């Protein structure tokens, strides 16, 4: 979670709000923040750390693991209309890469701002050309994009 907290300023600049969720109580969240996370991120966790002790929210999001009674590392990008645009779910031992989430948020924001007229090719990074799907692009993607453009 400290990895997300560390990128919070960048997420805020993109107009993104963050909510973290686990089965720990909000009291334990406080202890974790005050005793450990504050040592990793200046000022501690700046967003809501939600508690879902019964797993109700986790079940609704398909990340509940009933054998361990915990929630998997699921992350969801939700647009201003409340629609889930992207999700990723990892089992516990591997951590996320927040930079990839931020890249996806930037891509979805661009698509939304274009009113759906633009799309982003594989590996797109901000500043790179986008695709404008239409009759003129059929069979011509190779002219504007190729796999080597992915960093």
């Amino acid at each position, binding site marked *: 979670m400290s990895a997300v907290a560390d990128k919070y300023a960048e997420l805020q600049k993109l107009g993104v*709000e963050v909510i973290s969720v686990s089965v*720990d109580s*909000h009291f334990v969240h406080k202890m974790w923040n005050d005793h450990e996370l504050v040592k990793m991120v200046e000022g501690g966790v700046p967003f809501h750390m939600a*508690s879902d002790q019964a797993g109700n929210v986790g079940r609704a999001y398909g990340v509940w693991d009933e054998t361990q009674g915990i929630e998997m590392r699921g992350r969801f990008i939700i647009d*201003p209309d409340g629609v889930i645009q992207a*999700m990723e779910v990892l089992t516990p031992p591997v951590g996320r890469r927040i930079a990839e989430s931020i890249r996806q948020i930037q891509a979805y924001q661009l698509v939304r701002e274009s009113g759906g007229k633009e799309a982003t090719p594989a590996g797109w990074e901000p500043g790179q050309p986008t695709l404008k799907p239409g009759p003129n692009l059929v069979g011509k993607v190779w002219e504007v994009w190729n796999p080597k453009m992915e960093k």
Partner: protein
Amino acid sequence: MAEQHQGCARVSGSVEGAAPQSQPDQAIAPEKEKIMTARVGQKAPDFTAPAYYKGGFTSVKLSDFAGKWVFVCFYPGDFTFV
């Protein structure tokens, strides 16, 4: 941020619109429990949960952030290692 009274009840997050969990004496079974499962391209299940936020205890509701992009992150537990 509204500071919330902290009782001793074990509180949890809950999904908006979901049936209460224990209704033992219900005479008529509900038609069919709505199972909400998150899917891309679909509305995110709304939820309310107790939260720790900037030094205080409060409650957070997903739909309170309507009109903004929201990044919801689940993780296995506080004080775990990854």
